[in-house]
């Protein structure tokens, strides 16, 4: 037990990791887990309640929607979109944000100024509007959803990380590395990046939660993947019209989004607590 790294021994991290892993496994094995074809319509049995409620059928464990599609199957397939977006989009945003943050914080001067002002301008757009505009321009589709999220959210990484890079760059050991003859590249990757990595990982897990929400918003307004691919936001949008006929259809996707985002946030919080050197250092002192 004690040979495990500290971050794996934290209850928060384990809980968050557990939730995220569960959703990821569901997404991965969707074809095996889903009881029905998520797009198969069954117009005779629309608005069926869950199997345990009165009038429910065991074929559709969580009931059906307005077109008689299996809600459980749609949820399971929807997890694929959510997880793909969460992982790929946040990695993309992290990559752009982290590279620019390190360049800005390490070199300073006009480079820092330029990147800083770009972030300022970028962040003055309301993020949801910006991604909507992007989606209108790019057209729907999974790849474009990811692209839109990356283009909107890299600023979050850039701004927070830049401050950290600035602090680390002022340490004497960075100056010492330069005096010894380290190139800029080696100084940043060997001396600075290891110090900013904990913050980066923490931000990444929080960003994954945000990406899930943004994707849900976009698909809610029909600006995400096409109508033929099940997505959680889409399910909410559909169910919204029949909220009095079939409240269940609204509850399940919302619950799933809630649990997934909670998982990412708990994971991020746990990582922050265990990886943040400053927090652990003060505890030791």
């Amino acid at each position, binding site marked *: 037990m004690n040979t495990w790294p500290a971050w794996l021994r934290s209850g928060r991290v384990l809980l968050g990791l557990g939730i995220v892993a569960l959703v990821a496994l569901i997404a991965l094995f969707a074809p095996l887990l889903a009881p029905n074809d998520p797009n198969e319509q069954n117009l005779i049995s629309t608005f069926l309640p869950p199997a345990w409620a009165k009038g429910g059928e065991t074929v559709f464990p969580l009931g059906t929607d307005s077109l008689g599609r299996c809600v459980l199957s749609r949820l399971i397939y929807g997890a694929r979109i959510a997880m793909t977006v969460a992982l790929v989009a946040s990695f993309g945003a992290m990559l752009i944000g982290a590279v620019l943050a390190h360049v800005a914080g390490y070199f300073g001067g006009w480079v820092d100024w330029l990147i800083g002002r770009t972030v300022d301008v970028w962040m003055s757009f309301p993020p949801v509007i910006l991604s909507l505009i992007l989606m209108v321009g790019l057209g729907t589709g999974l790849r474009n959803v990811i692209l839109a999220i990356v283009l909107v959210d890299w600023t979050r990484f850039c701004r927070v990380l830049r401050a950290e890079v600035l602090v680390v760059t002022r340490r004497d*050991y960075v100056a*010492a590395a330069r005096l010894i*003859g*380290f190139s800029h590249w080696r100084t940043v990757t060997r001396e600075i990046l*290891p110090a900013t990595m904990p913050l980066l990982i923490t931000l990444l897990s929080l960003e994954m939660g945000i990406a899930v929400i943004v994707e849900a918003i976009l698909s809610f307004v029909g600006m995400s993947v096409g109508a033929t691919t099940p997505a959680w936001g889409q399910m909410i949008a559909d169910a919204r019209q029949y909220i009095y006929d079939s409240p269940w259809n609204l509850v399940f996707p919302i619950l799933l989004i809630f649990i997934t985002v909670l998982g990412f946030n708990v994971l991020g919080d746990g990582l922050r607590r265990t990886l943040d050197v400053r927090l652990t250092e003060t505890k030791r002192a």
Partner: protein
Amino acid sequence: MSMLVARDLTVSATLDGERVPVINDLSFALQPGKVLGLVGESGAGKSMVGRTVAQLLPQNFAVTGGSLSFAGADLVTMDPEARRALLGREIAFIPQEPLSALNPVLTIGRQFDEHLARIGVASRDRRERMLAAFDAVHLQRGADLLARYPHQLSGGMCQRVLIAIAFASKPKLVIADEPTTALDVTIQARIVRLIAEMQERDDTAVMFITHDLRLAAQVCDDILVLYAGRASEYGPARKVFATPGHPYTRCLQLANPAMRARRALYALPERMPGLRAYRDIAGCAFAPRCPLVIEDCRRAPPPLVEVGAGHQAACIRAALAAGISAAAEAPGAEPAADATILEVSGLTKHFTSRSLCRRTHFTAVKDVGFVLRQNEFVGIVGESGSGKSTLARVIVGLETASEGRITIAAKPMDGSAEADAHRRRHVQMVFQDPQSALNPRRRVASIVTQPLEVAGQSWEARLARAGLLLREIGLPPEAATRFPAQLSGGQRQRVNIARALCAVPRILIADEIVSGLDVSVQAQLLNLLAALRRERGFSMLFISHDLSVVRYLCDRVLVMYRGGVVESGPTEQVFAAPAHEYTRTLLAAVPPDDPAEVWLSFRSHA
């Protein structure tokens, strides 16, 4: 009657559920109008004594035995309310870090006013009292000062404000916890004199906590030397200094470089046991480091016995203590070969700070020129802000010079890549603060062989090299796999030096590398540098605000003042016959070797 009397005072800490005595059976008495010095290295428990009196003990610490009486009343058993009422009114505290002791978001006046309100001064009298207090500590324009914030004042001014606040209530006892450690020498001298002045005016008793035995010998009437939470020696300052009754006192004396004559330093080996090790100590805690140790020392803790009139020492071989002398010979001023390795001429560095509509220029280094010869150690002294560190950073290439020339081993530094590579081969820097200079995520072996990483050498080759380097700088081989956080301050500084030496530079630039270290660790490092110089032969620019250290180590000295060199020459000559007014001020600010000498017109102890 004594103002403060401790009898067998014992303070314990609860660490991981275990109770460990931190202060053991300490007894002392402090008379009104007298100064008691608590001396010892960090970890000796001297601050803990001060904090016990001031009731500032940390959460898990408590008095577990003995008594501590203030003006006849026992502070330990006293009702907490009554005890609190004494603080600030009868007992005042001057802290070590003046800047962090003042609230940064309140004006000086507001903070002083709050204090006066607490001690019950009527609101219409307060302003007058404040101005009078500032006047007493020689702070000019007191009315302006009231509206200022702490960050707008220098460290020395903040310390004066705190002294003014401490003495405002005319306390009977003032506890000064290393009040000058964070300040420059010239300011230290003024602050110490100020405390003495205030103390004489009000006939206050002062407990003066310091690590500087020489300063204590000047300032204090009595000295209590602490080691590992126990009194090792207690007596009149002059006697303790002239005929130390405990080997520890004598070793501290010998570890401190002398100002007048150049003599060898005695570097105490190892270090003081940590708190957790206290309970495992069977005999004398100092025995493992003591040059006089015999078998009997390890049996039982030696009692405090009389070695002279009013002079006690806890040593069974007290009579021999004063006879200890340093074995290692002083680093002879090795004749530097007449080859110039570094030449600096007309070096100037401006900084520009830009605000929205205005640019302000600030000249940190002004027209500095000097020559460093092979195998020569040159000291650079001056107060903080005199441009010493900037000069160093320009020479190693961390800053670029605004004007002037630097020539390293016959090659001018013109900013070309070739010149930079040449500079890196020849010059290395040892940074001041090892905490910041060592990457906390690298192991020691990886840190000291960083230059080999650039050359792309294998890990095995680097480990082998690390082993050699560690032996050379006196660290055990198992340190190679440790992280910097697992080392002591002195060990970290050794690692810091080892990294600079790895590339076999011909010039080493050391920026305040022994400041902030205990005197025994400082002596170890100074001896190490002297030994390395004998074995390797390199030149060094040694930047320090501590004149005695420069006196010990360096062949020549440059005195810097406001960015320029005001005096330079062979160390002996500059120290014996300073030509410039500023050099004289600096030298006068250092407490003399012999406490019998008059320093800063201090009252004599006779």
